């Protein structure tokens, strides 16, 4: 249980410092807003066919806002080598991973909570689908994305220009998840008849989530090894 105790301590530290500065969250949310605005230029929201891109836009927001946060999460440990402080402390590598994951995940959930309603509002989207399923998909997708993202951010942090490396590592690895959730979201938002197919996607994503979370947990030792 020591693992969870230290993980919670770490998550608390990150969230507390975010509470003090509010930098990451605010940036993420403004960034999400910008993406929405840019998309509203690109596709005339009045045009009815553009409704079809909404699932895509939702995930573009989550991905890009997420990357900002993921980057920060380990870069912020580089100043004054605080990462070394954590590594020299009596905690498992897994608890560093888990703590960072918790902090990032709670942050992205807040971003979603703010930006998705805003998106619906701006694109005048009437929600017909199933809300619980929608929330489930968002949750599962974010979970997988952040789980892998935190892991790869830890990996990329070893590079001098980690904020550039992370997207390169992250995008290819998470595409299966992203394809799955975009498809599922699309079905749930626009075409509830095909629900079984959406559920198949959800299962696929869940399987991917679980596998990767476990694999990350096992491999993080090697990443954070000195």
């Amino acid at each position, binding site marked *: 249980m020591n693992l969870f105790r230290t993980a919670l301590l770490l998550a608390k530290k990150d969230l507390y410092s975010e509470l003090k500065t509010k930098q990451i969250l605010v940036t993420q949310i403004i960034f999400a807003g910008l993406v929405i605005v840019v998309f509203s230029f690109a596709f005339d929201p009045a045009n009815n066919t553009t409704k079809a891109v909404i699932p895509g836009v939702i995930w573009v927001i989550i991905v890009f806002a997420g990357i900002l946060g993921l980057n920060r999460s380990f870069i912020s440990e580089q100043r004054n080598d605080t990462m070394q402080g954590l590594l020299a402390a009596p905690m498992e590598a897994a608890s560093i991973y888990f703590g960072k994951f918790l902090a990032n995940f709670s942050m992205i959930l807040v971003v979603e909570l703010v930006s998705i309603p805003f998106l619906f509002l701006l694109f005048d989207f009437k929600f017909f689908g199933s809300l619980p399923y929608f929330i489930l998909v968002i949750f599962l997708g974010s979970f997988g994305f952040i789980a892998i993202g935190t892991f790869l951010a830890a990996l990329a942090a070893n590079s001098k220009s980690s904020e550039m490396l992370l997207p390169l*590592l992250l995008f290819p690895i998470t595409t299966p998840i992203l394809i799955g959730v975009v498809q599922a979201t699309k079905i749930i938002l626009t075409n509830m008849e095909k629900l079984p197919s959406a559920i198949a996607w959800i299962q696929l994503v869940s399987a991917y989530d679980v596998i990767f979370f476990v694999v990350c947990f096992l*491999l993080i030792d090697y990443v954070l090894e000195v």
Partner: protein
Amino acid sequence: MSINLEREKAVLPGSGLTETRGENLSKVLFGASAISMLVSLYFIFIFAAEESTMRAAQKIFYFHVSSAWLAFLTFFVTFVFSILFLIKRKRIFDTYAYVSAEIGVVFTIIVLTTGPIWARSAWNTWWVWEPRLITTLILFFIYVAYIMIRQMDGVWDKKARLAAVFGIIGFADVPIVFFAIRWWQTKFHPIVFGEGPSQKGGGIEDTMLVALLVTITAFTILYSYLLHKGVSFENMKIKVDQYKEKLRETLDK
């Protein structure tokens, strides 16, 4: 008083490279791959039946499919050696993983070029966005990222460790590429082996299958030659680095 950052002379730990045996193996592999390539060329262009609609353009099929198969194989080898490296921490495993990934990237590029060339005559377009092609492209990006990790600065063991981790994670895409056409309803890319939702391309003439199998064997032998060559080349580089360092130390003296 002046400073002294001088180094003392040190003896290099002999990095065991059994030279002669390696040479022989390399020669054998070279011969084998040359011969098998010639044989496969015979099978492709003379033995195998010509496809009715696409004629000669169809011949690229053999290279296309064999390279795709090889890409899978190379990345699997990388995957296995990555795991081995994380357990055993021997530099040789890392070298194998790296060289194999590099070869894999080359063959993925071949798939990604022969595919479009073929597509030009089969589908009348260079590229379409459908699952197998996309996942193949992503596979390519994953292993380019793998090589990027290798290019990071730092000591080799750190890079090897991180690359190994990524090599394990990244392998997840390979089965996805393979199953892509089975999971998604694909409009274009045919399924040859096994069942799938679209039966469009299924089935293949016997002579073609034989030719294909021969080509795949030839490519696999070629791969083992390249891998062997690449690994001994990497080892050479490592050795040269060691000698350089040794030389520097004696110069410092």
